[in-house]
């Protein structure tokens, strides 16, 4: 069930350049059903900024009733979010995430770009726990914005790329996939739309899951703000409820 609750802020800290890790606690966590779901956050109590901000759940711990979000402070709302210290108005969990039904011994590649990286962390943890091998290809702008490298390393190999070459392989995640000849049985991807299209093409032969972004209003399927083009008779699906995770081949890039 979707909850709207004031969650306790356990901790908030900057873990890379403008990248914040935010730990929240509350009964909402009990409702999380799969990795890749997101929450919709009101960053303050005023009318400006007005709308909630969608942020993926990066990891969660049902025993502690806690979850971790990782976000980039870029615009008005996320910058305001960095100022919050006590509690936060959170709605969620929302959307349907990454399916982690797995085949023992197979390999999953998790491909993330920038602030698309966070939801892959819980996904990787759960795949690993269910007996898959996990490989990570994570793309960032530059050295300063790299985060969670060691966390992912505990689960499996990590290939980092940076757009400016200041760390890891220079270029995009797809360059690293080619350079290191990365193969897998299934892929999971989250990041900027052009990256998603390129990854889908690159892993043409295997099944995969793609987490999509779109500007949102309600976050629950009512306002029709967040549609994306899909193949098939509906033509449009809603990122907030039909997604954010879609099956490979569903999305029309353009």
């Amino acid at each position, binding site marked *: *069930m*979707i909850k*709207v609750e004031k969650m306790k802020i356990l901790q908030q800290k900057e873990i890379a350049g403008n990248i914040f890790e935010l730990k929240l606690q509350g009964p909402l966590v009990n409702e999380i059903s799969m990795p890749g779901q997101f929450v919709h956050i*009101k960053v303050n109590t005023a*009318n*400006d*900024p*007005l*709308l*909630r901000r969608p942020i993926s759940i990066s990891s969660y711990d049902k025993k502690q009733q806690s979850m971790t979000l990782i976000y980039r402070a870029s615009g*008005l*709302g996320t910058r305001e979010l960095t100022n919050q210290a006590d509690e936060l108005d959170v*709605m969620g969990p929302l959307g349907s995430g990454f399916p982690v039904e797995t085949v023992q011994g197979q390999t999953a590649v998790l491909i993330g770009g920038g602030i698309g990286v966070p939801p892959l962390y819980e996904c990787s943890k759960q795949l690993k726990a269910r007996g898959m091998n996990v490989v990570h290809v994570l793309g960032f702008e530059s050295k300063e914005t790299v985060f969670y490298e060691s966390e992912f390393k505990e689960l499996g190999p990590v290939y980092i790329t940076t757009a400016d070459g200041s760390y890891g392989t220079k270029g995009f995640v797809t360059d690293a996939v080619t350079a290191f000849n990365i193969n897998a049985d299934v892929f999971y991807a989250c990041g900027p739309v052009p990256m998603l299209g390129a990854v889908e093409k690159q892993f043409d032969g295997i099944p995969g899951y793609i987490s999509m972004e*779109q*500007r*949102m*209003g*309600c*976050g*629950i*399927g*009512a*306002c*029709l*703000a*967040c*549609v*994306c083009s899909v193949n098939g008779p509906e*033509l*449009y699906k809603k990122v907030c*409820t039909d997604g954010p995770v879609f099956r490979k081949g569903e999305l029309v890039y353009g």
Partner: protein
Amino acid sequence: MDKLNISLPGLELKNPIMPASGCFGFGREYSQFYDLSILGSIMIKATTAEQRLGNPVPRVAETSSGMLNAIGLQNPGLEKVLSTELSWLEQFDLPVIANVAGSMMEDYVLVAEKISKAKNVNALELNISCPNVKEGGIAFGTDPLTAKELTAKVKAVSEVPVYVKLSPNVSNISEMALAVEEGGADGLTMINTLVGMRLDHKTGKPVIANGTGGLSGPAIKPVALRMVYEVSQVTDLPIIAMGGISSAWDVIDFISAGASAAAVGTANFVNPFICKEIIEELPAILDELGVDHIHDLKGRSWNVGKVANTRA
């Protein structure tokens, strides 16, 4: 004693609070949060004769205390709305106000005739003010003669009372109100969104794919309130008011300005429980204000300040 019930053409409402069209879908999503039967009414998403896919994305953008939208009337079309959505809504004790849209007069007439026959549709809301579709919509909403004609045509076929939704993007909203009153409207709903725009700072391109969008939310409340204040003093038609309402006190303001009921749009996105909370908070506020019924507050702003001469 009941402090909130209200009687409007076609509508016997438990209370004057309802979600505004397009901000609550057909109720399904919000039914996860509370029992829709507590609502006064529900204004469902605009329905057109045929299915519409709406505009390209992005369809929304945030502004200071407001948001822009250009959804573009995406809806599954009349038949599906009747068979799937309205029938689903029958499970609730909830009179429905059906928002009717189209490109040409014939579209409105067609949809109005059919949808007004649905069991739980107690009134129509003629959307002559949608700023986000290329043909029709706003055109009907800014020309008094066209608005009057359309109202009359729809009245001729509708089996339930007809409310006309006014656009704020006009020089003289009272003139529009009087025109649709002459056309036979049973009530008014106001306001729809103000046409606005946001640009991406870096690229200079419009954030919304459609270019412009409709501005809603607290930012427009002062404009909505002024228009309700003005129109309620020149017509006897009941007004269902909307525009930035996000608290029970906002509702009190609109009733004080002359509205009979109030609809909540954008605020549902911020707080999905908002309609319920407002309904629950109103009785205590009425006690605080020392009135027995919310309608005792209707129009209490009139003649206090003078009506500023805002018209040509």
